[in-house]
């Protein structure tokens, strides 16, 4: 078995882990998982643990994490975590406690632990943005947790774990010894209540009968920020190793029909958490946004295991990738998507492509439903995977998002009818990119321009605004607060597809810039092209301050320890 975690060195925070381990090495005795009390006297927490049944976990972890007569292993039986959480824990044990694991054994341990000591899907939902490496605004971090944990971790990292009360206390003790950073009593109390070992969600999920029939054909919808969507299929075949699948995804661009074929492998952890790797056949391209780049796949399935969605990503900061949704292919006709997000009122005989699976040989206009005010004039052509229809859009067609349907296959909110766009929002509205250096690749930033229409209140940026969807724009940039016409060559450039490309290695400068999007067709009331802008900080990848070296990781600066020469 080849673990989907085999090459997560860039994914996991190696930098932070290494820094942490330097401290941890001084306190190796703590890795044994002693709760408290006199050395040699093992005390088990009073809360009922989760027995460990797996021989490999017992063999590899049992010398330190001793078992009681009910099969509970120290620490492990009072903890639950995401696959990524367990992977980090094992990485720590490998480096700290000289645990000897082959990649296959490590994969099996993660598989067992994240299945039997994992999170329920409802619990994992709250930290999906972290494992999918999405920049996300954490707005509800309790002050106690922020103070105790926030200096080093995001909130999702903390909530990737569930622990007994005693184990949260143990974690605090460990942090005291390793980093002189104990959790406050308030933080422990909060976490014990918010992230307890036992929850109704976990009880229900762990008691279910898992469905192991993942093999087969899945339909794929994928979108890449700044580009149009892709539709296709993904074949999953058992690799022969327990729980692992080989994959082959064929994705076709709705814009130009070009095809991307990606092959790889992956595994469904805990019955819902897909983790895999894949790459395209043309992986030799050096373009950072080439869709054949090797990607890590992170997806979460629905409880019925009929669909899953997530992100396939790559890049120095995991900043590039697909948003992906897969669903099991069925014997019924399935509408996957359409070739646009917008329809303007008044259009006549406009051709729309509908992409899907198993469209029948005989179809009629009545099989298609675009909602009120949009009528199907005729079916131009059809195949098993595509229907082209001509539609008329009434001038008084209701504005806003609507569903599109082929017979009983419905896509909610797939299309927006509009008469004009009021403004453009460039996403992300604020972001960080990075120059490269001798050891780190550049950090890119992909942009997308989304058109909006003011809602009934006539005001922009209010809750009733209608998101119309991506529109065609011309990209440019200018340096913040600088005079018009100031050169941006030292900073970088924005490609026609909205990819910001930093200007190579530039280790001693950082810049603030506006990334500008000018609509190609949509104009404001004065006849000027609609313009949107986003704020971008382009940073150095590493800096030294106060004798310490700070390295940029995914979305934060990591204290990498005392300053030292750059390793070449």
């Amino acid at each position, binding site marked *: 078995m080849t673990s989907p975690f085999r090459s997560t060195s860039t994914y996991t925070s190696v930098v932070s882990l290494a820094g942490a381990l330097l401290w941890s090495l001084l306190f190796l005795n703590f890795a044994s998982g002693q709760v408290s009390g006199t050395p040699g006297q093992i005390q088990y927490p009073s809360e009922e643990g989760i027995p460990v049944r797996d021989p490999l976990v017992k063999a590899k972890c049992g010398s330190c994490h001793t078992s009681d007569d009910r099969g509970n292993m120290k620490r492990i039986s009072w903890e639950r975590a995401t696959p990524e959480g367990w992977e980090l824990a094992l990485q720590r044990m490998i480096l700290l406690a000289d645990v000897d694991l082959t990649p296959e054994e490590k994969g099996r341990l993660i598989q067992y632990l994240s299945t039997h000591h994992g999170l329920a899907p409802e619990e994992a939902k709250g930290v999906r943005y972290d494992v999918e490496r999405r920049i*996300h*605004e954490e707005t509800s971090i309790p002050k106690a947790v922020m103070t105790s944990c926030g200096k080093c971790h995001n909130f999702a990292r903390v909530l990737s774990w569930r622990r007994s009360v005693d184990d949260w206390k143990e974690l605090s003790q460990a942090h005291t010894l390793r980093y002189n950073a104990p959790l406050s009593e308030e933080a422990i109390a909060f976490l014990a209540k918010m992230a307890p070992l036992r929850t109704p969600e976990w009880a229900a999920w762990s008691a279910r009968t898992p469905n192991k029939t993942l093999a087969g054909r899945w339909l794929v919808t994928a979108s890449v920020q700044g580009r149009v969507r892709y539709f296709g299929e993904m074949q999953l075949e058992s690799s022969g190793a327990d729980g692992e699948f080989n994959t082959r995804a064929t994705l076709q661009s709705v814009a130009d029909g070009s095809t991307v074929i990606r092959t790889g492998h992956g595994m469904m952890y805990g019955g819902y958490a897909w983790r895999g790797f894949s790459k395209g056949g043309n992986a030799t391209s050096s373009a950072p946004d080439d869709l054949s780049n090797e990607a890590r796949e992170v997806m979460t399935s629905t409880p019925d295991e009929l669909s899953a969605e997530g992100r396939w990503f790559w890049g120095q900061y995991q900043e590039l990738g697909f948003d992906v949704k897969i669903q099991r292919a069925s014997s019924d006709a399935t509408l996957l998507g359409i070739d646009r997000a917008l329809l303007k009122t008044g259009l006549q005989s406009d051709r729309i492509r509908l992409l899907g699976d198993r469209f029948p040989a005989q179809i009629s206009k009545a099989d298609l439903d675009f909602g009120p005010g949009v009528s199907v004039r005729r079916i131009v052509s059809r195949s098993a995977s595509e229907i082209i229809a001509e539609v008329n859009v009434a001038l008084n067609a209701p504005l806003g998002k609507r569903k599109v349907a082929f017979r009983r296959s419905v896509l909610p909110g797939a299309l927006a009818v509009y008469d004009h766009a009021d403004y453009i929002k460039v996403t992300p509205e604020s972001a960080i990119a990075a120059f490269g250096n001798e050891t780190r690749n550049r950090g890119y930033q992909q942009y997308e321009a989304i058109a909006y229409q003011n809602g009934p209140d006539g005001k922009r940026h209010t809750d009733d605004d209608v998101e119309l969807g991506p529109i065609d724009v011309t990209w440019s940039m200018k340096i913040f607060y600088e005079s018009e016409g100031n050169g941006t060559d030292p900073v970088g450039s924005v490609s026609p597809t909205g990819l910001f490309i930093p200007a190579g290695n530039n280790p001693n400068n950082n810049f603030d810039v506006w990334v500008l999007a000018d609509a190609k067709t949509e104009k404001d009331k004065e006849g000027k092209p609609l313009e949107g802008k986003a704020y971008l900080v382009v940073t150095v990848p590493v800096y030294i301050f106060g004798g310490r070296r*700070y390295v940029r990781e995914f979305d934060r600066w990591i204290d990498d320890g005392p300053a030292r020469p750059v390793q070449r």
Partner: protein
Amino acid sequence: MKSTLLSFFAAAAALLLIPDSASAHHGWAAFKSEPASLITFKGTVKEFHFMNPHSVLEFEVKDDKGQIQSWEGELTSNTNLAPRGWTAASIEEKEVITIIGYPAKSGAHAMRVTKIVLSNGKELKVGLER
């Protein structure tokens, strides 16, 4: 994608610390801070960006010769403004408002906003009121 509140602040704060850099990134130190340097404009709102790590108000004012000048006023982040009642729609496009703040040391048409008074007389608190 949005920013991780904590990390974005950390990143932004850290950037300000980079020594010996020919940095074009700015911090509050890029603006004057003496009370005597406070400036007041009556301007027309071009756009308001309610975001991390700084919210930005774009506005236009007429100079002494009647020429339109474009200015950018910088405020604290949306996450700091939201508890004071701010939203992305707090300042509307084309609204004529009064903006008070400290100008950029560089002479650029930029300022650190300390107070905003809307056309209806309502004052928006930015946390730097004196």
